[in-house]
């Protein structure tokens, strides 16, 4: 059996890597990849599935003091980036493969982040009421158990 020449293979690989880089860059641009580095709530409706959340958030009691990321992501930079990456991966996988549970429900990890953020701002007011420290909180102690629609109506 005769093998293709090494230089030919190297050229093919080079072209393919170039194609991948170009196509990847364009897809990133077309899917507004850079916008995900921002803090703008409108970014969360890039894939339209959060339209109702954004609409009700913009009428909610929190819209002038917090954006999506303030409640849904940690505030310590490395954890924030990690959470962004984890959620970004999960969301794009779910939306591309269309295989997620509807109505969309918050997962335990994200609920924990949310709880920490409620407490971060409201600690002075609620420190007596928090029986279990944030992080180890059980479902019953989550602020959103009762204050379900403080951020946006539960339309999902």
């Amino acid at each position, binding site marked *: *059996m005769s*093998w*293709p020449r*090494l230089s030919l*293979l*190297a050229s*093919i*690989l080079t072209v*393919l*890597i170039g*194609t*991948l880089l170009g*196509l*990847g860059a*364009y*897809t990133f641009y*077309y*899917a507004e990849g850079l916008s995900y580095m921002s803090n703008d709530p409108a970014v969360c409706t890039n*894939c*339209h*599935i959060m*339209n109702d959340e954004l609409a009700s958030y913009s009428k909610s009691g929190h819209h002038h003091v917090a954006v999506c990321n303030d409640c849904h992501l940690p505030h310590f930079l490395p954890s924030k980036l990690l959470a962004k990456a984890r959620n970004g991966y999960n969301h794009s996988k779910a*939306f*591309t493969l*269309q295989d997620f549970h*509807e*109505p969309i*429900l918050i997962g335990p990890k994200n609920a924990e982040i949310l709880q920490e953020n409620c407490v971060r701002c409201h600690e002075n007011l609620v420190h007596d009421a928090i029986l279990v420290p944030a992080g180890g909180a059980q479902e019953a102690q989550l602020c959103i158990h009762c204050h379900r629609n403080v951020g946006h109506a*539960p*339309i*999902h």
Partner: protein
Amino acid sequence: MTTSPINAPKRRWRITLLILIFLVACAIAGVAYLLTSVFQHKMEAKNPYLRFVEVTENTTDPEPWGINWPREYDQYKKTVTPTKTNFGGGDAGITTEKAVTFPFLTRMFAGYAFSLDYRDRRGHAYMLLDQEHTRRVTDRPQPGSCLNCHTSITPTYRRLGDGDVQAGFVKLCMLPYQQAHDEVVKTGSLNATWNGTTQQLKHVDGAHPVSCLDCHDPQSMRLRVTRPAFINGIKALKKHEGIEDYDPNRDATRQEMRSYVCAQCHVNYYCGPKIPLLFPWGNGVQVQEVEAYYENFKFPPDPKTGEQHRFYDFIHSETGAEILKARHPEFETWSQGIHARSGVTCADCHMPYTRFGAMKVSDHWVRSPLLMVNNSCQQCHQYPEEEIKARVHIIQTRNFDLLQRAGKSCTDMLDAVKIVRAPFDEANRPAADDKAKAKLAADEAFAKLSPEEQTKKLQSTAQSILNDLWAANVAKTPELHALGELHRKAQWRLDYVAAENSMGFHAPQETARILGESIDYFRQAQLAAQKLAPPPH
């Protein structure tokens, strides 16, 4: 072929390169897939619909609309599917008589067409077919009013009223049913047809069940209400609440419209020969408010006597009372419940959003939320599906039991009145028999009947004469009249719950209150009857 040791590293390089090429090619394919997926979702969200064909104010046929809005149309067509929940719907084919589950209904409607044929509900697609075939319409004369809600009718109103929908509505309501039906068929639909590359609108005869046009503006697809009876009714209701000149198409919020479009038909109404279809909302929509409205409502003067009689639907053939018929007050009952209070509309539960890719479409397969708990209830109530169903079951079972109990109080009262009436019937039967004979002697059709049929006809005619005599007796005897009034109040309430489609779920506490009052009035009537009963021999 043998390989020299010198070539071995080169070969390894080649293999590595080939593997890399393969991997990069796979990655490119993956990115390309992602790109097209992003593109597809962007396009889905960009163009919620494409308007391929023209639809107009006269396109009552939903099929052309279905070309532009295939998702909604496909779901709408699914309303032919038989569905069944614990207390509603049925298997394929025509649904069962309600009297099978609620035997008291037959006696409760004695003297009224509802005692002939009164079946459980089916999907939207059947509304016209079922109306055309019910014995209430085939065996008894009915007014054109009935068609207001069973067919897509606004273009017919516009045609009959020479452009004035309100005038056409009044005109059609007062026509006999069959004649009104013919008018709707004659109006037909204006459908787009293609002639090469140009589009033409062509008239096609035919009547259609509820259609796109009834709730959507054909230009903007905006929600709107079209049926005059609702527009008049809601105007009167808002006036009662202190708002003058209310126009739902101008003044209602989008969320309100998501209930109002349904309330065009899913309400209690008067549908009879004396006046055009009426939504009796001038005094509010609670059961006692509608009752008070009816109490003060006078029919137009009788052409013979000039008398303006107070409102009633039929004279009960057993008690002679002037009875009010309640018709499925879904909108009214919902408005008294916690869901209405929380701003949840009909469409939120019965037409919840379903997702097609990046698009969300409100489900036009209108049906019980119990058949789609995850899309409907779970949007707000985040509990397991079984838990939600169990809660609904508890509410509905309690209502069902109380409803049957109220039905028992109804038949107990009717039995008590029977005893009061017995001596009257005995005294007047010979005269009624003579009158029936005299009446039928002049009837040519009667002479052609077989002897058995003649006897049957004679008996039923005599009975109906006797019922009329008893009713006249009730009207002029104060004690009997008072008894009849209790029957009227009691049955209005029982029927209000029995006719409503939700088995109490739309407003459980309100429904229980109404049934409680109903049982009380029936038992009061029964006690009054027992006092009037002749002493036992």
